[in-house]
């Protein structure tokens, strides 16, 4: 995979161990700066969230906490609506992922079979939505007619079938499961269901993991559908709650923006806001290192077909 690199170092390495150019330092410096733009903002929010109110108001908190305290987190956890929303979001994401994988497998497995009659027709039917959607208002009226507006299901059902994920899974089945395996099972009298359950799925664990994560992270992070379909507070996912919280905070700051300065801002509990941001961010940062490699794999398989 990295054979170009190895060759570079070995052919160089015989004479000088590592011959570093100025450009090497420039590249490392630029990348270090870019990486810190991805870390420092979150570090700052974290530091703010565990600092005392006083130093934060006095603008003394930069990259190290002052007057360490976890009070803000205590208040976040005491806020029933935040903890409820977190639990609810996890529930919706799990349900969504399970249903999504079921529908995805039901589409991808049959379409991965070359012999299937009508394969072209079904592929066409299942791919059109990827390229053309009716748009917001027709979808809104449709969901209204289905009596799904402002229910938990409106966050799940319309997105359960994903043409992109289906393509990734189909490509995996076609390239990684040998036909001969299935043929011999067929000769032994196994049915299609049995082959899928006992042979194909156990061999497809990596792609199942990858696509489950695509589904889960996708639902976890998306909230634009709340603007259209959700009005009850109880049905809001945690990301949208954070969005509302920030919108509200910005509005209150801006009404007081006339006199830019310290006094106007004392009304906004910045520390609490930082704790809320961290409360929503930490779950994804905690699992992120484990997810990353699956995502990269999935993105590559998707690109092959693209």
């Amino acid at each position, binding site marked *: 995979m990295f054979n*170009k690199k190895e060759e570079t170092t070995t052919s160089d390495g015989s004479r000088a161990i590592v011959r570093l150019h100025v450009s090497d330092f420039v590249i*490392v410096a630029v990348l270090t700066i870019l990486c810190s733009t991805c870390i420092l*903002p979150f570090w700052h*929010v974290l530091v703010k969230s565990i600092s005392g109110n006083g130093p934060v108001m006095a603008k003394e908190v930069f990259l190290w906490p002052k007057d360490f305290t976890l009070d803000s987190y205590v208040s976040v956890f005491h806020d029933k609506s935040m903890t409820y929303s977190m639990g609810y979001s996890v529930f919706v994401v799990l349900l969504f992922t399970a249903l999504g994988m079921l529908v995805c497998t039901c589409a991808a*497995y049959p379409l991965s079979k070359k012999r299937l009659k009508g394969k072209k027709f*079904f592929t066409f039917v299942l791919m059109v939505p990827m390229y053309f959607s009716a748009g917001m208002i*027709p979808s809104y*009226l449709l969901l209204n007619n289905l009596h799904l507006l402002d229910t938990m299901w409106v966050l799940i059902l319309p997105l359960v*079938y994903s043409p992109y994920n289906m393509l990734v899974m189909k490509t995996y089945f076609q390239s990684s499961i040998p036909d001969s395996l299935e043929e011999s099972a067929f000769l032994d009298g196994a049915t299609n269901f049995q082959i899928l359950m006992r042979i194909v799925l156990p061999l497809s664990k990596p792609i199942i993991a990858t696509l489950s994560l695509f589904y889960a992270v996708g639902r976890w992070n998306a909230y634009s559908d709340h603007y259209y379909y959700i009005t009850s507070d109880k049905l809001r996912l945690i990301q949208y709650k954070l969005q509302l919280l920030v919108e509200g905070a910005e509005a209150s700051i801006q009404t007081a923006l006339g006199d830019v300065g310290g006094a106007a801002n004392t009304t906004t509990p910045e520390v609490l806001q930082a704790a809320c941001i961290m409360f929503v961010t930490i779950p994804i940062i905690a699992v992120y290192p484990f*997810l990353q490699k699956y995502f990269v794999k999935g993105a590559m398989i998707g690109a092959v077909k693209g």
Partner: protein
Amino acid sequence: MSDAKTHSNIVSKETKKAIKRDWQLYLLLMLPVAFVVIFSYAAYPGLRMAFMDYKPALGYEGSEWVGLQIFKKIFKDPDFIRALRNSVSFNLLDLLVSFPAPIILALMLNELRLMRFKKVSQTILYLPHFLSWAIIGSVAYTMFRPSTGLVNMFLMRMGVIEKGIPFLTEKWHWAVSYLLIGVWQGMGWGTILYLAAITSINGELYEAAMIDGAGRWKRMWHITLPGIKGTVVTLLIMNLGRVMGSSLERLKALDNTQVREFEYQLAIYIYEKGLQNSKFSQATAVGLFQSLVGVMLVLIADRVAKRLGEEGLL
């Protein structure tokens, strides 16, 4: 006559055999088909609203057909013109700055010889892709507020500026911040496909170039870049399709009253006109216009790419 008969007999026999063998597969397919029919195809007929004066109380049957009246109306609507202008200019600028960023970053990562450093920086640079716009927006405000944002606090403390820079609360500053935050969010993740394309370039090419005395820049310019040209073109075509659409989440996450003038893009127009003011026909027409232009741009770009000898997308 008899020929046709035997032919159809064979076909039906084959079909019967296929169904007998694969009925379970067709059964499986029913589930996803049901989902697309109910949630995607069933919405398509709603598009006729764009050609009607749709009144929710009257429904489709009672509302009047008006041909292209709605389209004529929206093109006279100053709000629409403003949203269109903002969408097109911001998305073109976005394409201009966000599209090359991952390519440059991938080239840099590829030149790194410290493998550990490369791995770690990739992990870090991918991170913003995994965070929602709500998180990015709220963190952006924490960084860029005029008086309490980290960047302004730091600059003021250092004595570089006296008054905070309104990164997100003045429209021109906002425009730059909006674009750069987009670059920041997408650049890391965007490198994946380019890095994959780079690893598939034949290593002998580099070796030969090195024997010929080609330096790092020459190798990059004459081997790596041509090697990923196909990927670049494909992704460019795909991105062109998005020139009309913008993400409601991204706009809302960086939204505030001071920047309304630039923030007002088609996604906001459709949301506000359509849902908040119940102008269903107008919003549907704009949505239709948006997706048709997107599809057309992709088709045209694909043609052009093929003319120029590239593989294209379709």
